[in-house]
């Protein structure tokens, strides 16, 4: 009996490490993809072989280097204006990452605050916030972002604003429901009984229990933010026209898709890998962060 007790007490040297191991390939693949995306965004000037805006009309629509007619100085070919596709892809990551990080964080802040509010106060506070969310979600999100971007004007800020305004509901709903669930748990009652105020109860007891959920939501939201940015730049109401974005590259490539399919295909590949990477990373991180699932 005593031996069992001691054996049970012998916790692994580092729980975090054990957790990281347990979350398996999902976390690692996700982490590598996300790291690639981040590195490309941060060190774009270092990695990009050319200026993304530099035009070389003599070598327009070159195919990738390994295909016949390819030029080894343009690894992934050039677009219709002779701009280096690889460089443009790398620089586009900047916009994507910036939008993803800022928009998802802001949406999370607003959504979590309102969700905690609604979930913990209940009554008319909950009713009004919940109805607001219902009404909000009834609008088609992409349409709403397009209208917003059109009204506030094009630019990075308006893209971010559009995403935040549309997507805070995603956080608010889930956090509200989970807050309610957590508040009915015995530990929440026990915390109230040691005299914690509502604010401290939420901050010290409830919020830590929401972290795994929040991490997943954030990662998913970053993926969605990237997609929305792509949609908005595809229709041309995102950042200024000369800044490369995946969406505008698709829009340009679409017109010459029969002559130069890679111009459209390559940004699509980038988008898909980024979104998959973020989702895997979020999922893996949730497993690694949750101490109950960790053991």
């Amino acid at each position, binding site marked *: 009996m005593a031996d069992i007790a001691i054996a049970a*007490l012998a*916790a692994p040297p580092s729980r975090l490490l054990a957790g990281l191991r347990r979350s398996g390939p999902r976390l690692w693949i996700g982490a590598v993809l996300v790291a690639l995306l981040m590195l490309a965004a941060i060190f774009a000037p270092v990695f990009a072989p050319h200026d993304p805006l530099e035009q070389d009309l003599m070598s327009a629509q070159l195919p990738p280097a390994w295909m016949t007619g390819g030029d080894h100085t343009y690894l992934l070919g050039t677009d219709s204006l002779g701009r280096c596709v690889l460089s443009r892809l790398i620089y586009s990551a900047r916009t994507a990452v910036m939008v993803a990080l800022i928009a998802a964080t802001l949406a999370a802040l607003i959504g979590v605050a309102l969700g905690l509010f609604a979930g913990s106060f209940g009554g008319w506070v909950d009713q009004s916030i919940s109805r607001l969310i219902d009404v909000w979600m009834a609008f088609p999100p992409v349409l709403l972002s397009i209208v917003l971007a059109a009204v506030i004007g094009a630019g990075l800020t308006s893209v971010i604003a559009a995403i935040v305004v549309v997507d805070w509901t995603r956080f608010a709903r889930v956090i509200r429901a989970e807050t309610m669930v957590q508040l009915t748990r*015995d530990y929440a009652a*026990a*915390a109230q009984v*040691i*005299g914690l105020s509502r604010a401290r109860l939420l901050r010290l007891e409830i919020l830590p229990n929401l972290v795994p959920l929040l991490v997943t939501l954030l990662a998913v939201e970053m993926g969605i933010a990237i997609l929305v940015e792509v949609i908005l730049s595809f229709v041309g109401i995102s950042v200024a026209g000369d800044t490369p974005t995946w969406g505008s590259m698709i829009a340009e490539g679409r017109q010459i898709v029969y002559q130069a399919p890679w111009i459209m295909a390559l940004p699509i590949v980038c988008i898909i890998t980024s979104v998959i990477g973020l989702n895997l990373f979020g999922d893996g991180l949730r497993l690694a962060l949750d101490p109950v699932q960790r053991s």
Partner: protein
Amino acid sequence: MTATLTIEGLKVAIGAANVLRGVSLEVQPGEVRGLVGESGAGKSMLGRAVLGLLPANASVTAGRIAFEGRDLLAMQEAERRNLLGRRIALIPQDPMTSLNPVKRIGGQIGNLLRHHLGLSKRAALMRATDLLNEVAIREPKRVLSLYPHEISGGMRQRVLIAMAFACDPALVIADEPTTALDVTVQRQVLQLVERLRLRHGSAVLFVTHDLGVVAKICRSMTVLHAGRVLEEGETANVLVRPRHAYTRALLAATPRADRPAEALRPVPPDLTDQLWSEAHRLDQVPAAGAA
């Protein structure tokens, strides 16, 4: 001397249904009072009312709850919170779920100590180590760094007991603290509660349905049924010479080592039916209590 806890004519209703129908009870300083009754008798609701933990749809419709002479129901929220955890503590029913699953034991005890005693993080951890020592947890330093799911149910209950007594409370409400534990651990937990209450000078309101537990540690007891007090007094008197038919029936329904199993009799349904209809008749005349 002021009683630690005074409850006078407490009535609690959930929606239209009455749960407590005018309960009065007193706990003197340092006293261990057993609160017994079958499930649905309202004994947990009574504890919850004292702690201000009534469910959202329940309300106190009449009566007074005073802690050391101060009315808990009339008190400001902040003032009441200041008493909770420091002067009035709870040992919860289910140790498996009453600790925050994502926080280390040390963090949870530390929070309590820092919140009420204003200790620094370091001092709180030192004190937490002492507390765990007090409840006979070996290697307290290591246990402090563990998560609740990494220790056994008995250990969790000991952690919760340590937290309940951490600030030398005047009153500890033990809400069936042994129900969720297996029998071998139950005895240790009872001994622990007994030892700690002596050391910290706390009174204990021990909510339970187990007369054996009451006989073991409670000096006085109150028998509750359908939200009414049927009988109360010194444990020895009540158990040896029960005055109320219901108490006698409860005793006959309690298994004992010195009597054959055939002697066990369930509480007669006629008796409970009669008691419930009495209770419902009481509901019909709401003014009777006030008059």
